[in-house]
């Protein structure tokens, strides 16, 4: 559905396949039958957005509703944006080619903080007013969901309505309410007031915030009937929860170009740095029957020859071996591979390894996260050096020679000794290879260590913690480098500059709206990409707004501070997070949900592992 004006641009840009739509299984509807047009926007480029499972689920689900047409919109890369702006072509949806401005509902998924500038830029490219207060009519309603919506405050000026928690039901409820208001010519104001009554919906304009002199929040008050606390939505029965039987199959290669089955939601582990481990509680599994059926349908309808069994920790699936047996009964004949993206150090058994080996041999990645046992106890990683060495020995015995290890730098209580521990652990893995009696002959080992900088996130036991300053992170990175003495170890890290900004927006409040607006005014975008991110530019923006980013990133909060996201409830109690924080400082671990219930509060959601017998 691309018009000639756009076509003229396509040969002037890289990868025009990003901008043309028309893929297998994309949904085209007749506008005459449609009452609600929904633009599902991913604030990053096509290849990244098209890899996202949540978008695939909600795209298919919304399109099952006869009166809704859900289309996809991605952020164009800079070359295409330049062409579009020069030629006055608004940002358009891939299915109809219509401008984003023509849509009833413009929905964004918030996967990472550094995409916030893209959200503004995408609205701007279609001439949609950025601030919700400047959008007066019911149409062009801007909504957002996804993990970053757990602290929606930095985007409160721009987004009319947030979905808190899992979207499968609440998205449809809001769309239905929207249709009712559109039919009766209702106002945006009345619609938002009504929508705020739906569980899992947060309308930021219905709340007033005041601040203390020290800059922290004093009061946070709902107006009218808006709820004081917004509870997340959760899909308790994954077998009954909607899952698409087909994906849009892109022409061009995307980041994760395969069929994906979500085998479980939530995580039993409770690693103290991990937001996903808390906000997706309780742990729920999909049945083998449902996974098997969904994988068959997806492969049948897409032609993919690879299935990814996705989750926060796939080796925690209680019947993982049975599941693989069931799938491999048909995938081998169909020349279809299975990949397990999230394996735990302690979940890599000999049996599992043999199965993975039979399927496809790629590198193995594990995440010990910290270099010493003390620090692993602090973060509740519950993985020992012994387990890691046992696992890599299993892998070496099975013929693997490449191991990738993920670590974090800047965790609470971390010392230079802990940093050295990363290099020591990697060295022990290298040594284990050379001491292995059955190591692959004539091959060398490669141990990649990737060290990202710790970003404290809301709804974790570390939500009160300061982030290390960029200088400290750099010093620790240098120390790590000087501690590595083997050429078999290949270190790499994420830029500390980006992590700093991520930390600011992750725990930001409404005052950051002005910062985002100014950043957008200065043309900033694609901040998740190193080609575009500039700390210098961000610092200038903060300075011009009179806001100190260190207040958000590097400040230790007290337990009694009113946090910007305190009105959002993910089931896990704040008091539990405080207890966990104290246990971290005491080097005490907490058992996982399968071993014992630690009374985090998620049982109030009445489902999953919280109600199963252990």
């Amino acid at each position: 559905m691309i018009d000639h004006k756009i076509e003229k641009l396509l040969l002037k840009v890289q990868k025009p396949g990003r901008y043309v739509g028309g893929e297998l299984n994309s949904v085209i509807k007749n506008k005459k039958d449609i009452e609600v047009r929904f633009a599902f926007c991913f604030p990053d480029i096509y290849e990244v957005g098209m890899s996202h499972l949540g978008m695939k689920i909600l795209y298919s689900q919304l399109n099952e509703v006869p009166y809704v047409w859900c289309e996809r919109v991605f952020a164009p890369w800079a070359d295409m944006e330049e062409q579009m702006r020069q030629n006055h072509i608004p940002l358009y949806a891939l299915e109809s080619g219509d401008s984003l401005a023509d849509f009833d509902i413009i929905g964004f998924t918030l996967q990472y903080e550094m995409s916030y500038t893209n959200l503004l830029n995408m609205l701007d490219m279609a001439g949609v007013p950025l601030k919700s207060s400047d959008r007066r009519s019911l149409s062009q309603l801007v909504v957002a969901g996804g993990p970053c919506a757990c602290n929606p405050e930095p985007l409160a000026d721009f987004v009319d309505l947030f979905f808190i928690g899992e979207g499968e039901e609440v998205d449809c409820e809001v769309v239905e309410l929207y249709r009712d208001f559109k039919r009766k010519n209702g106002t945006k104001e009345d619609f938002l007031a009504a929508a705020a009554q739906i569980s899992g919906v947060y309308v930021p304009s219905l709340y007033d915030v005041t601040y203390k002199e020290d800059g922290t929040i004093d009061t946070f008050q709902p107006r009218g009937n808006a709820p004081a606390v917004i509870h997340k939505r959760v899909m308790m029965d994954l077998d009954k929860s909607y899952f698409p039987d087909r994906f849009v199959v892109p022409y061009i290669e995307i980041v994760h170009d395969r069929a994906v089955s979500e085998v479980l939601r939530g995580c039993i582990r409770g690693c103290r740095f991990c937001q996903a481990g808390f906000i997706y509680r309780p742990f729920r599994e999909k049945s083998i029957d449902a996974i098997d059926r969904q994988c068959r349908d997806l492969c049948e309808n897409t032609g993919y020859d690879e299935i990814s069994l996705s989750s926060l920790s796939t080796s925690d699936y209680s019947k993982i071996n049975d599941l693989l047996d069931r799938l491999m009964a048909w995938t081998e004949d169909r020349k279809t591979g299975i990949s397990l993206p999230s394996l735990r150090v302690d979940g890599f058994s000999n049996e599992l390894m043999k199965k993975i080996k039979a399927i496809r041999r790629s590198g193995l990645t594990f995440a010990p996260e910290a270099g010493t046992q003390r620090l692993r106890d602090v973060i509740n990683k519950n993985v020992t050096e012994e387990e890691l060495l046992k696992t890599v020995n299993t892998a070496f015995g099975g013929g693997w020679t490449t191991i990738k290890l993920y670590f974090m730098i800047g965790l609470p209580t971390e010392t230079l000794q802990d940093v050295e521990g990363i290099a020591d652990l990697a060295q022990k893995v290298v040594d284990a290879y050379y001491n292995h009696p059955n190591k692959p002959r004539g091959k060398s080992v490669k141990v990649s260590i990737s060290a990202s900088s710790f970003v404290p996130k809301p709804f974790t036991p570390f939500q009160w913690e300061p982030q290390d300053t960029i200088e400290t992170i750099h010093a620790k990175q240098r120390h790590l480098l000087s501690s590595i003495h083997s050429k078999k170890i290949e270190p790499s890290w994420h830029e500390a500059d980006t992590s700093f900004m991520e930390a600011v927006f992750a725990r930001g409040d409404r005052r950051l709206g002005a910062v985002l607006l100014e950043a957008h005014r200065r043309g900033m975008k694609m901040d998740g990409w190193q080609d575009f991110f500039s700390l210098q530019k961000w610092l200038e923006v903060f300075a011009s707004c009179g806001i100190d980013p260190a207040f958000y990133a590097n400040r230790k909060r007290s337990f009694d501070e009113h946090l910007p996201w305190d009105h959002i409830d993910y089931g896990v109690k704040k008091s539990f997070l405080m207890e966990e924080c104290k246990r971290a400082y005491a080097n005490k671990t907490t058992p996982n949900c399968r071993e014992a219930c630690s009374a985090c509060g998620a049982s109030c959601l009445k489902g999953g592992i919280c109600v199963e017998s252990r």
Partner: protein
Amino acid sequence: MKVVRIWFRKTGAARYISHLDLNRCMSRAMHKANIPLWYTQGFNPHAFLTFALPLPLGIRSERECMDLKLDDDVISREEMISRLNTALPKDLAVFDVTEPVRKPGQIATASYRILLEPENTSADELCSQIRDFFQAPEIVVPKHTKSGIIDFDLKPYLNQTSVSVKGDGVEMETLLPAGSNGNVNPMLILDALKKYLNLEPYADIERTGLYDNTGKIFE
């Protein structure tokens, strides 16, 4: 094992799909359609797809082909066409399956039809402007080759090119060298219009046929 030639159209959005992406898209469609492909016998078995002559990005075609190797239990031509079409996006449509007659290496020329939409002038004006321009002694444009960008004179290749008014637009029919022994992309004609006449009309380019060195159509 049997080699068959699959004939398909590449239109609409599919015009903007690179050859590499087309290759992957077709492999996936074979898999989805359960076509009994012959796989290489190596450690990482893969199917064998060969395209006669990759279509440059942005050009559509009503008659593209690729060869593939089937396992012995061959399915019928009709069955194969219908299965593939349910597995492919609508802008890639299979319309025939044949036994290969000529080898892709025999391709020597390709014909193209270029429809230009005039922007600020009439079709008549644009047509005569282009006709005059084609009388120039040389028409030099930059051309990407394996050894980098070179200055390339298009003029000697334009002797089988006609320009005429068609409705509101201008139609060019041209026959250009194609294949492994020298290939001239019709986009170069558009590059020349831009360089010499500062014209950048919307152009719909279709490859209308492939021929061997005696002018016989490739089949």
